[in-house]
């Protein structure tokens, strides 16, 4: 089984999410920009000419760009998740929606926007406003009526990663560039505070593959991986490789008692110890590993990973990927399933979560 055999079905499955959706999708209304990114990025990874097809939708995407005027200063700006959230005079932009929109514009080669230094500066200032003075971490949005980081949001590694990636897309490359907008020292300290004893990153000492990927990607973009000790890197590599689920050797003893073990998860990755394997955690684990070591493909077994994705979580009937072999496929797991396969093929930039042929244009 290969991805190409099923390519047409995957494309149909993905395209459905961009078309007219029934009212039952209302809860997803505010996440539209995420849906647009997952879909267009996946189509691009499947080598669809997304620029050709979706250039006509650029105007609609631009409508999600919102500026917040400040009294004596340049406005700050970012993107909202849906036009439902676009309310004049109210701060509804968020870091995740801004990242999703910028990446989508990059994929669609909408350069006019991404090379406008005034707009990039405004977006970078928005990122700046989301950083918390107390510990250098980020909230994902502002208070609805003031330029302060939100009072009710969470401040975890996801938003640290997203903040750094937005700045990178807006032109920051060196630590000095980043430091024009954010306190990089405090941020790196916050990221370091989320290190876990057994390796990996997470909250209060329990490592989590998703947070690990966010932490390492952010450090990579900040060119600060050297802030991690050799011992911690070795522990993290070990922890990550251990997340590959196996049904041979002693692992098979778990079949009897471990309620979160499934022998058919063989080759997949779990996000934490003693959890089922899941398509999205394949991506978070592999991306983390490839950041830590160039030898990642020999450290874990990528041919078993491919088998897990192609033979277990890929849906051969409807297209798309699900998290396991039970649930229906969904767009998020489809996006990360394809991304994982492309990562193994070395044609994907896992840190930015876009195909390498798109990210290469940023490096020049």
């Amino acid at each position, binding site marked *: 089984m290969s991805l190409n055999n099923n390519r047409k079905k995957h494309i149909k499955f993905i395209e459905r*999410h*961009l*078309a*007219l*959706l*029934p*009212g039952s*999708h*209302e*809860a*997803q*209304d*505010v*996440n*539209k920009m995420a849906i*647009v990114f997952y879909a267009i990025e996946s189509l691009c990874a499947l080598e669809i000419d997304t620029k050709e097809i*979706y250039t006509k939708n650029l105007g*609609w*995407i631009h409508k999600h760009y919102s500026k917040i005027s400040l009294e004596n200063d340049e406005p700050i700006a970012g993107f909202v998740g849906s*036009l*439902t959230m676009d*309310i*004049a005079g*109210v701060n509804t932009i968020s870091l995740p929606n801004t990242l999703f929109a910028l990446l989508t514009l990059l994929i669609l080669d909408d350069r006019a926007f991404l090379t406008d230094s005034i707009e990039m500066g405004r977006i970078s200032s928005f990122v700046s406003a989301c950083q918390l003075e107390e510990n250098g971490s980020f909230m*994902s*949005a502002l208070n*609805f*009526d003031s330029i302060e980081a939100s*009072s*009710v*949001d*969470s401040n975890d590694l996801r938003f640290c990663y997203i903040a750094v990636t937005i700045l990178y897309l807006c032109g920051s490359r060196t630590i000095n560039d980043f430091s024009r907008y954010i306190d990089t020292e405090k941020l790196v300290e916050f990221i370091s505070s989320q290190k876990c*004893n*057994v390796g990996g990153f997470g909250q*209060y*000492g*329990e490592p989590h593959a998703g947070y690990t990927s966010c932490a390492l990607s952010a450090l990579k973009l900040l060119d600060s991986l050297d802030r991690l000790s050799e011992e911690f890197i*070795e522990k993290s*590599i070990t922890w990550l*490789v*251990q997340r*590959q689920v*196996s049904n041979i*050797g*002693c*692992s098979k003893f*778990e079949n009897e*008692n*471990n*309620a979160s073990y499934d022998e058919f998860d063989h*080759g997949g990755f779990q996000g*934490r*110890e*003693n*959890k089922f394997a899941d398509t999205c955690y394949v991506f978070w684990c592999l991306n983390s590993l490839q950041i830590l070591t160039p*030898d990642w493909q020999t*450290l*874990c*077994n990528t041919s*078993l990973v491919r088998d897990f994705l192609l033979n277990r979580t890929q849906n051969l009937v409807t297209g798309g990927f699900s998290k396991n072999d039970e649930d229906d496929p969904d767009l998020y797991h489809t996006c990360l399933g394809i991304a994982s396969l492309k990562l193994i093929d070395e044609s994907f930039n896992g840190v930015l979560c876009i195909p390498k042929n798109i990210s290469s244009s940023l490096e020049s």
Partner: protein
Amino acid sequence: MSPWISCTLDKDKPDMPFNIEDYKDIEPLPITTGLPDELCEIMYTDNYKQIMGIARALVQKKEYSARALQLTSEVIGMAPAFYTIWNYRYDIVKWQMETHSNVPELLNNELSWLDEITLNNPKNYQIWSYRQSILKIHPSPSFKLELPILQMMIDDDTKNYHVWSYRKWCLLLFQDFSNELSYTDTLIQRDVYNNSAWAHRMFVLKSTAPSGNDINDEINYVKEKIELVPQNISVWTYLRGLYEYFRKDVYDEEIIKFAETFTNNVFDLKTLENLPPVESSYAIEFLSFVYSKNEATQYKSITGYKALSEKYDPVRVGLWDHKIKRIQQGNRAI
């Protein structure tokens, strides 16, 4: 004060049922949709369009009122990921605090409302950060009042990362760790593979400066659990964590003997042909790590990693080869 405000502030009936008639005077701010270049167009129901239209108008006007609070509840029910509405709701609550005669009660009602939203949206993470924000402005927050929702949510999904994180945040806020060892014990008895429960236990130990005897008890506790199910990564990680953190990473003869009871003399083998059955690959890995720390025993460590590659955990052959290489280059395995 307008009637709906006094109604919500009336402690006998804190919950005014939602009634669209209460918003008749609001000119709705309709959602933009039906554009020719729109992606992900949703066929909104009339109800959604109506509620969102009113909500958008109220946020824009910054109306602080009981009916505005009520409406945020409706919006959160329909679109729980709409972060701005949470933010708006929080400001309405803070506004209510200014005039309310019993602030603790007002905020406790808010927490009860949140309980219900939480039970309907167990995976939403906004609920926990919102909860933290409410507790932060609560004049007399109580860990006791947090326990029921924590209990319910962990019972429902014993490895829910957000709930465990919230529990640990509460422990730090209230500085009350007294019940946690017995609480995690209950969960570990229910499922010895529950890694979140083990991680929580380690967090509690690190936060409470346990005595040497306490750590001895803890080592005995985890040894019992290893004997119960030797092939369980969580217990071995926990054991190593105890030694690393409280025993300066020094492994005594006793713990080595204990681990060896699961490895069927594999470390003494001269050849790796016909490897015997063992009960736990993690025991072999644990000992291989311990042996790698001392030059005199490093050959045993290499035997262990080779045996893992060969038979006990062959999927990770790349990792075990890498460990052997490290030792041969004069490093510890880690």
